[in-house]
């Protein structure tokens, strides 16, 4: 139960901050997740959470309006099918969150860890 809750925390935070602040909150939240090293494989978790968060937001939008029409019209401008816009949207969230988490994780394991390690020993992977 606790694991599930923990796993849902990141997508929930990404979804809420996206709604409140905008797209740029995704790499910030992903970066913090990586820095704090709250999970194993933070890159994969953050990427999946980003895609899940934006996927859920798209589902909510679909309940309130014709997002397939939006997808077809906008993707059509670039000569793509509507589904491509959905996939690109999810990929963008995943890539932003995942790459930021990767950077955060590396910083946490590298320069930040070296600075913190002599005193606390934090920063080493268990």
């Amino acid at each position, binding site marked *: 139960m606790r694991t599930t809750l923990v796993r849902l925390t990141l997508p929930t935070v990404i979804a809420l901050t996206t709604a409140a602040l905008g797209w740029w909150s995704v790499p910030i939240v992903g970066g913090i997740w990586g820095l704090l090293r709250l999970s194993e494989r933070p890159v994969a978790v953050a990427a999946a959470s980003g895609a899940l968060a934006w996927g859920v937001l798209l589902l909510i939008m679909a309940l309130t309006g014709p997002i397939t029409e*939006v997808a077809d019209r906008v993707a059509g401008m670039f000569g793509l099918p509507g589904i491509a816009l959905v996939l690109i949207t999810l990929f963008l969230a995943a890539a932003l969150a995942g790459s930021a988490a990767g950077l955060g994780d590396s910083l946490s394991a590298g320069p930040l860890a070296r600075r913190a390690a002599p005193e606390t020993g934090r920063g080493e992977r268990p």
Partner: protein
Amino acid sequence: MKRGALSGTLLVGLVILASQRIGALPPLGPLLDPVNGVWALATIAELPEREELQIPGLSAPVEIVFDDRGVPHIFASTSADAAQALGYVVARDRLFQLEFRWRVTAGRVSELVGEAALSSDRYLRRLGLAWSAERDFAALDPASPVAREIAAYTDGVNAWIDQLGRRDLPLEYRLLGAKPSPWEPAYSLYLIKLMGWDLTFAITDDLRRLRLQARVGREAADALLPVNSPIQEPIQPNGSDGPRFDFRVLPPPGEIDREAAQIARTLERALGSLALEASNLPEPTPWASNNWVVAPERTAAGYALLAGDPHLGLTLPSIWYEAHIVVPGDLDVYGVTLPALPLIVLGFNRDVAWSMTNTGADIIDYYEEELDDRERPTRYRLDGEWRPLELRIESFRGVDGEELATDTIYHTHRGPMVSDDGRWLSMRWLVLEESGQEESLRAAVRATNVDEWLGAMEEVSTPAQNVVLADRQGTVAIRSNGKYPLHPDGSGLEVRPGNTSASDWVGFWPLQKYPFSLNPEQGYLASTNQQPIDPEVDDTYLGSGWPAPWRAMRINQLLRADSAVTPQAMRRYQTDPGSARADLFVPFFLGAVAGAIPNDENAAARDATRLLGEWDRRYTRENERAVLFEYAMNELVRRTWDELEVTRDDGRRRRVATPSTAVLASLLHQPESEWWDDRATDDTKEMRDAVLIASLGAALERARAEHGEPDEGGWRWDRIRHANIYHLLRFPSLSALDLPIQGGPGTLNPSSGSGTHGASWRMVVELGPEVSAWSIYPGGQSGNPASSRYDDRIQKWVEGELDPVLFPRRPADIDPGRVTSVLSLSPGR
């Protein structure tokens, strides 16, 4: 560490991609944000069921009820409140269109899209549309009702812009990475100038005439672009029970005129690429508005009937926005407005209905000016004295406000000048002078009968329109409404010397001379852009190069044959597939082949004759013979007017201009004219029938090559001609393309080659004890492509169907089942 560098690099790349425009690709972050990006367009696609808002500037609450066609019925206490509410709902539905069109008029599109628009911006600034609109606006009395309504409309548009949330931003702004600019009151007048440009500038004959003169001499040019149409079917009835054919002998092609060629080059520069294209349009032209009225004695119900379908360039969103405005005791008007105007342009009130077609009068003249310095002029000579030139400095800016270019535009008292090779031409164009349209229309929409309507519109200057009118008393009328210059020598065909005031216009037509008819004996009146008055009735110069009156002939034929017209018949006539042009030309094709001795050379033409003989001369969608006739006409035009072709720089041959099909019809009666001779065959002198036979044979070969055998389905008209309605930014996925419509060149619902022109609005009104009306336009009320109201009317428009409109006196009169949304506006701070 290596993984961290990789992640960092990837992140930087993604953030750049998400936050910066890369080429044509907009920043992906804000675009794809699922809450506030393009996806949000889905959440604002439909109107909220009920909404209450406060907006500053209102004097009292306004109730706006949207019916199930998305039409707002605005119930206000004052006309200014109604104008403000209209501005608000139009901005809510069409914000990008509002901005795009004023920017086009002002030559400021490059501020939105960058340098790509600089050339068209410079061209439009040189014309001075916005400059003249600003001058008109400055001349308006701020306390006048029209000025107050323009100000209120501005407040309405800006109220919407001010409260615009991130979700509400139209798609086009998101794609361009732009934000809406505040609306200015003068922009309402910009639109009138833009319409004036659209309806009068490009159709000027001066360039076509000069090009023809350069090619075949003055006498032939005058015959190819006659001042009077060879077929007379005027809008002011001439007492004739059918068309009057006034076929004249065409003089043979003359010598090349080099002086005319030089002036034509300067004029080409003045007119710009858009007008250049227009001057070389195929004939019949795609501009093809129609309107007609039927008096009560010729209708089934005994009430006057009116129909109108102005043809314009088709766009999504549509050029029109449908609305109903009610101000108890003052105004109750229904129809279409141009987004930007605080009034209804075409429509009806409780007593009168009106519709317009373009008159096409000659309201532009060019003058060759004498200047003190051809490179850097400061003065021009007039009647022996040097006068100072007026200077206008125009600065062009890009997306980030950077200066892209600066132009100096010189004006004489006539208007702006343009130069080429040291030759300077000034232009007097009535559109750049005060229009009077807004004040007059404001009064006209309040008229209670035809007479009042006509009285209200007496002062309108441009764009001149043929207005048909009908009222509940059963009065029907038509008038070509606008100012018409009186040229010094009675003709507007010349580029005149600018150094004498004797070249200037000597006045304007008095109102009594305007083409006009009231309750004619024939019981109906129609206009289709044809020459308004038969020159045998009045030969005062009004213009030249009139389009062939094929549509007028057809609608008059239909109305003559129907003594009990119904609204359904009026609707049917708007897309009638019959063709007066085909009725005239087909017998000549058939006769030419019938009169020829059969041989191998005319075998294809004989096959074609059999197929053409099967044609009912109707352009229905399933018709499989119309294509053969059209290809034969293309061939006939090409082969007949080969003398008008020149070799362009790219090596291709092009006609300098194409005479009207009415002139070609005239030539059919001169079977031995030199014009029939094919210049490519030195040893033979072709005559009419040889050209007709060759054209028909070539048409059959082309049709077979392009569409297969005649009865295999490939010749169906709906596979060949389509309507194409492009989005303002021409994205195909936001457009409605390849729409199969009924109608062909010269029919009442003509299809042009590109399919980008057509009926921009169709309306039928019955002036009974209660006014009933039906309407449609190709598009939808919303500018949001995700909305069901974006293009919901197109299918019906394609089918030629009209919707019955709701015309309630008060909100409670609307059937609740047909209400989709109610917006209550109240005064706020």
